[in-house]
């Protein structure tokens, strides 16, 4: 399934170019964080990898195969929670897998304990707080034992305490061997979590570096401007 090789990827719905000739190679371990300004195609890239959008050009190769061999899970910025209990929201996601009822229940209980939601297992998922909802969405993805976990701004609009809890879970999932690819606008979070940074601007990868090197010495003008928070960043980029 890895390395994941993306070559000349293009996404241009109705002629509006979002991703253009995007090249990227990702290893099969660690946490890769995609940074970049709004509207630059971060979420689109995740959705293309998940197969939720059709590419208009280029290729995505998983190891040597056109399709991922391992399981792939994604947690969205606004996760879908069914009007069921917290427990049922995890358990139903395991039904398509080759697991019997006892195995599903055991796995569900295990991940709910690990994300700290076991005590709310019987409560309605729709009544959870924002942080708890995101932890539940992570638990559901984690329960599926994904080889690649895609996270689209998993802590957007969460308070620091909830963000810390989510980051702890992401680290645990990485430790269990899943590759994590996530987007964020939170530079602090990127410094805490990332093994490598993919900086996206103008629909292309401007820079792909180990996190420490990126934050110490961003190479591209776009990344430097973004890091300095210059507004509007685009002016700095154009210069």
């Amino acid at each position, binding site marked *: 399934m890895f390395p994941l090789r993306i070559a000349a990827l293009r996404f241009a719905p109705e002629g509006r170019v979002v991703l253009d000739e995007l090249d990227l190679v990702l290893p099969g371990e660690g946490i890769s964080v995609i940074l970049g300004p709004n509207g630059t195609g971060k979420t689109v890239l995740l959705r293309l990898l998940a197969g*939720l959008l059709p590419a208009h050009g280029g290729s995505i190769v998983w190891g040597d195969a056109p399709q991922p061999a391992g399981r792939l899970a994604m947690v969205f910025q606004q996760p879908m929670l069914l009007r*069921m209990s917290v427990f049922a929201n995890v358990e139903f996601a395991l039904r398509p897998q080759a697991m019997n009822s006892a195995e599903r229940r055991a796995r569900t209980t295990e991940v709910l304990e690990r994300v700290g939601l076991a005590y709310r297992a019987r409560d309605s998922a729709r009544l959870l707080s924002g942080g708890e909802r995101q932890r539940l969405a992570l638990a559901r993805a984690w329960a599926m034992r994904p080889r690649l976990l895609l996270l689209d701004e998993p802590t957007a609009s969460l308070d620091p305490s909830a963000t810390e809890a989510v980051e702890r879970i992401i680290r645990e999932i990485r430790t269990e061997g899943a590759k994590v690819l996530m987007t964020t606008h939170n530079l602090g979070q990127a410094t805490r979590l990332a093994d490598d940074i993919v900086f996206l601007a103008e629909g292309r990868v401007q820079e792909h570096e180990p996190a420490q090197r990126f934050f110490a010495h961003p190479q591209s003008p776009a990344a430097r401007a973004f890091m300095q928070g210059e507004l509007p960043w685009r002016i700095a980029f154009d210069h």
Partner: protein
Amino acid sequence: MTQTLLDALSLLGSFDHRLLDIVALSLRVSLTALVIGALLGLPLGAGLAVAGFRGRGALIVALNALMGLPSVVVGVLVYLALSRSGPLGSYGLLFSPAAMIVAQSVLVVPLIAAVTRQIVEDAWRDYAPELSLIGISRLQAVALLLADCRFSLSVAMLAGLGRAMSEVGAVMIVGGNIDGYTRVMTTAIALETSKGDLALSIALGLVLMALILGLNIAVHFIRGWALRRYG
């Protein structure tokens, strides 16, 4: 007018057995039609919401149009189907409560299916990415979405019940409005009004309105409680 209203209230207060029989039959016919309408309309509407096939748009337009199907037209079609020379004539259902249930079901199914399709499709638009990544099939999604939208779908059920209980043309044609056998509230109101017995008509009208209003109030409170309980 006042005297007529007093007579109507007197009929209600005395629990007139003729009136109670008519009310009971109306409820039996309409609730049975509602159950049949739900069993067919809910999966049909949800299936159409998540399905993707050529001609889906035309089917949705047709389904929406069927919501406005004139009840007398349904009455005539069901009459033809159930009459002795019709395809279902051998069952001998014409001029029976069963025939009225068939006619009301024909009216209710498209209504429940169309409302269900709209509600479930809105949910499907939000849920489809995650459900497809999880590996849920469209058939499994139908069951999940029906369960998830259950509170919103109560509106579809209420609309179906309202359509069934207020319907007069079709049940008049296929039921025959036979006293003590196929006479329901709406057909009785039509007949008694033409005969000049306004007291019974008004009494039945009050019961009909009270039933529909009561059901709507009950569903409103149950829905409110459920939303607070389940979010």
